[in-house]
C-alpha cells in the first residue's frame, strides 16, 4: 500500500446521465434521439475534457479535433433528416493507435512509425465510420501492443484516472483510461494476451475480447496473428454489446474471419446457467483484496440463480510460458516488416551514425526505432524458433497450447461459463515492474489462456478495494466457449444490472 502521496482523484459514483459527462453509448444515443443534445455539443464537450485532462492522463497520442467536429456535424444533419445510421451515430469513440485510419498518423506507440500516415482504413474503422461514429482520437498503448502497463509507449506512459501515480494497465491503457476518465464515450482496444481485459479491470471499465475470428483484424498492426483480436472498451456491458454488433462480421480481407457464428447462441436464462470456478485461478499470487471482490461477485451470480461449481484447468499454470514462446515467435516474424525501406523510421547517414550499406539501414533503423520490450520479444521469438531450438521451444509450446485447449473443452462439458479474477492485482504504481519483464508478464496470468484457446472473455467492473487500499477497481473475468459471445454479453449485462451500485461512471475530476 502506498500512502506517501496524496491522491489527485477520488473515486466518485455519478448519477447516470446528469450531464454530457459520464454518459454511456445508450444514454448518449437516447439524448441525441430526443433532441436534448446535438452530436456537435457532445463532441465539443468531450474535446474540451480531453484538452483539460490529457496533459494529466496521457490517454491520447493524437486528438482528431477537425475530423471529429466534421463527423459530428454530419451526424446532426443525418438526425435532422431522420437518417440515423446506428446506435453509435454521433457518439465520440476513441481508437487504439494500432488500427489504420486513412490519412491519419498511426504509430502503434512506436518511434519506428512516428510519422506513418495510414493509407487506408482498417475494417473496424470503416465499420465505425459507416455507423456514423465520431472518431475523436487515437489512444496511447504499449509499443506494438506489447506490455501490461502502457509504460512501453515510445511517447509517454498513460496514468490511471483513479490514481495518477498508478498504471492504467495495458496494452490498451490509453483506451481504458479515456473511457474511465470520460475522455471518450467508448473505445476500441486489441487483446493478444489480455490487453483489453486487464486495463479494463485496472481502470474500472468493461473490456470485451470476442472469439478469435469474429472481428476482422484487417488494418490492425499485427503483433501475434494467431492471438490478436479487436474488441470494445466501454462503460457498460450493454455498450460493449452495441459496439461489438457494429464491428463484428465476416471480412474477406482477414483470412481468419469466421462466417455464420450466429448459429451457436443458446440464450439460456441465468437460472439455467452453470458457472465453473477453476481452483487454479485462486491459487498463490492472487491479491486477497482482489479475491474478496471476486467472492462477492460469485455471490451475486448465485443470487441471479446461476449454479456455481468448482472445476479444474490443470494445465493453466503453463499458459504464461506457452504464450511467451508462441507470441514472440509471431512477433519476430510480424515486426520484420519494419526495416526502414517502404515506410517508417529510416536511419540516415550523419556525423553520429555511419550508414553505408542496406544492412546498416536495417540494423540502425531497427536499433533506434524499436523500444526495449519490442527488441526483447523479437529476439526471444527468433531464438525460440531458430534451428536447433524450434523443437525444444516452439513445437513444445504448440503442444502445451493443445493441452490448455483440452482443459477448456473438458470444463465446458460441465459448465456454460468460467469465472475468476482478470488480473492478480489492482493497478500497480508506475515504474514498479518496468525493470523486471517477467514480473510484468505475470499481470496477464489469468487472461493469456483465453487467447491461446481463441475464446471470448469479458472484464466487468466487480468492485473496489477499500479506502486504505486506495479504492482501486477490479474486474470479474467471465470466459465463454468459442462463439458464445452473445450469451457471454447477456450474462455480463445481467451481472452488471444486479449490482447497480457498481455502475461506476468515472473518477472525480477536480
Amino acid at each position, binding site marked *: 500500500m502506498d500512502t506517501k502521496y496524496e491522491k489527485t482523484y477520488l473515486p466518485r459514483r455519478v448519477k447516470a446521465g446528469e450531464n454530457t459527462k459520464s454518459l454511456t453509448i445508450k444514454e448518449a444515443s437516447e439524448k441525441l434521439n430526443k433532441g436534448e443534445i446535438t452530436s456537435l455539443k457532445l463532441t465539443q464537450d468531450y474535446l474540451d475534457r480531453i484538452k483539460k485532462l490529457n496533459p494529466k492522463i496521457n490517454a491520447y497520442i493524437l486528438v482528431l479535433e477537425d475530423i471529429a467536429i466534421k463527423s459530428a456535424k454530419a451526424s446532426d444533419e443525418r438526425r435532422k433528416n431522420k437518417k440515423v445510421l446506428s446506435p453509435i451515430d454521433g457518439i465520440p469513440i476513441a481508437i487504439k493507435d494500432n488500427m489504420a485510419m486513412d490519412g491519419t498518423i498511426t504509430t502503434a506507440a512506436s518511434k519506428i512509425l512516428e510519422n506513418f500516415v495510414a493509407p487506408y482504413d482498417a475494417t473496424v474503422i470503416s465499420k465505425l465510420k459507416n455507423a456514423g461514429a465520431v472518431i475523436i482520437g487515437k489512444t496511447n498503448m504499449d509499443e506494438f501492443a506489447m506490455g501490461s502497463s502502457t509504460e512501453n509507449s515510445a511517447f509517454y506512459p498513460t496514468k490511471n484516472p483513479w490514481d495518477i501515480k498508478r498504471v492504467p494497465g495495458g496494452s490498451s491503457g490509453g483506451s481504458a483510461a479515456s473511457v474511465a476518465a470520460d475522455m471518450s464515450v467508448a473505445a476500441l482496444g486489441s487483446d493478444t494476451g489480455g490487453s483489453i481485459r486487464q486495463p479494463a479491470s485496472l481502470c474500472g471499465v468493461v473490456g470485451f475480447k470476442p472469439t478469435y475470428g469474429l472481428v476482422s483484424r484487417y488494418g490492425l498492426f499485427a503483433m501475434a496473428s494467431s492471438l490478436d483480436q479487436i474488441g470494445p472498451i466501454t462503460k457498460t456491458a450493454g455498450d460493449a454489446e452495441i459496439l461489438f454488433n457494429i464491428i463484428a462480421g465476416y471480412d474477406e480481407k482477414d483470412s481468419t474471419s469466421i462466417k455464420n457464428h450466429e448459429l451457436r447462441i443458446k440464450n439460456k436464462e441465468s437460472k439455467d446457467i452453470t458457472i465453473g470456478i477453476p481452483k487454479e485461478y485462486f491459487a498463490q499470487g492472487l491479491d486477497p483484496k482482489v479475491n474478496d471482490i471476486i467472492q462477492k461477485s460469485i455471490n451475486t451470480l448465485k443470487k441471479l440463480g446461476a449454479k456455481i461449481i468448482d472445476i479444474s484447468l490443470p494445465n493453466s499454470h503453463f499458459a504464461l510460458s506457452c504464450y511467451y514462446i508462441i507470441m514472440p515467435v509471431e512477433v519476430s516474424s510480424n515486426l520484420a516488416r519494419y526495416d526502414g525501406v517502404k515506410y517508417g523510421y529510416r536511419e540516415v547517414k550523419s556525423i553520429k551514425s555511419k550508414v553505408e550499406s542496406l544492412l546498416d539501414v536495417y540494423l540502425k533503423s531497427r536499433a533506434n526505432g524499436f523500444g526495449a520490450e519490442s527488441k526483447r520479444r523479437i529476439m526471444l521469438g527468433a531464438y525460440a524458433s531458430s534451428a536447433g531450438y524450434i523443437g525444444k521451444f516452439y513445437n513444445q509450446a504448440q*503442444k502445451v497450447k493443445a493441452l490448455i485447449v483440452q482443459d477448456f473443452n473438458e470444463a465446458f462439458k460441465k459448465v456454460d461459463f468460467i469465472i475468476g479474477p482478470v488480473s492478480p492485482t489492482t493497478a500497480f504504481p508506475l515504474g514498479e515492474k518496468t525493470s523486471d519483464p517477467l514480473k510484468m508478464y505475470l499481470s496477464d496470468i489469468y487472461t493469456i489462456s483465453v487467447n491461446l484457446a481463441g475464446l471470448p472473455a469479458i472484464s466487468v467492473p466487480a468492485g473496489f478495494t477499500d479506502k486504505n487500499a486506495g479504492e482501486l477497481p477490479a474486474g470479474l473475468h467471465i470466459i465463454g466457449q468459442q462463439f458464445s459471445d452473445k450469451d457471454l454479453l447477456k450474462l455480463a449485462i445481467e451481472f452488471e444490472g444486479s449490482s447497480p451500485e457498481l455502475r461506476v461512471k468515472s473518477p472525480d475530476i477536480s
Partner: protein
Amino acid sequence: MELSKNDVLHVAELVRIELKADEGEKFVGELSKILNHIDELKLAKIDNIETIEQISNLENITRKDDVVKGLPIAKILQNLPESQGNFIKVKKIFE
C-alpha cells in the same frame, strides 16, 4: 537455461537489430530469466497430444486470382523514407 553473450549477439544479428553498448549484457540477463521460466514447459505431459494448427478449425482460405485495385501510388509514396520519382530509394545491394 543460460544464454551467452554470443547467443544474444547472434540472435540480434539474425533479427537485424544493432545492439547498443549496454544492451548485450542487459538482454543476456533478461532473456535468460525468461527462458528459465519457460523451461517449465518440459514438465507438461504432451504424449499423444495433437498440435492445433488453427484455433477456429479454418482450412486454407483461397480467393479467385482476379486483378483488384491496389492502394493509390500517391498514398504509398507519402510514407517512403526516401524516394525518387515513383520509386523507393535504397542503398545499393550489389557492389
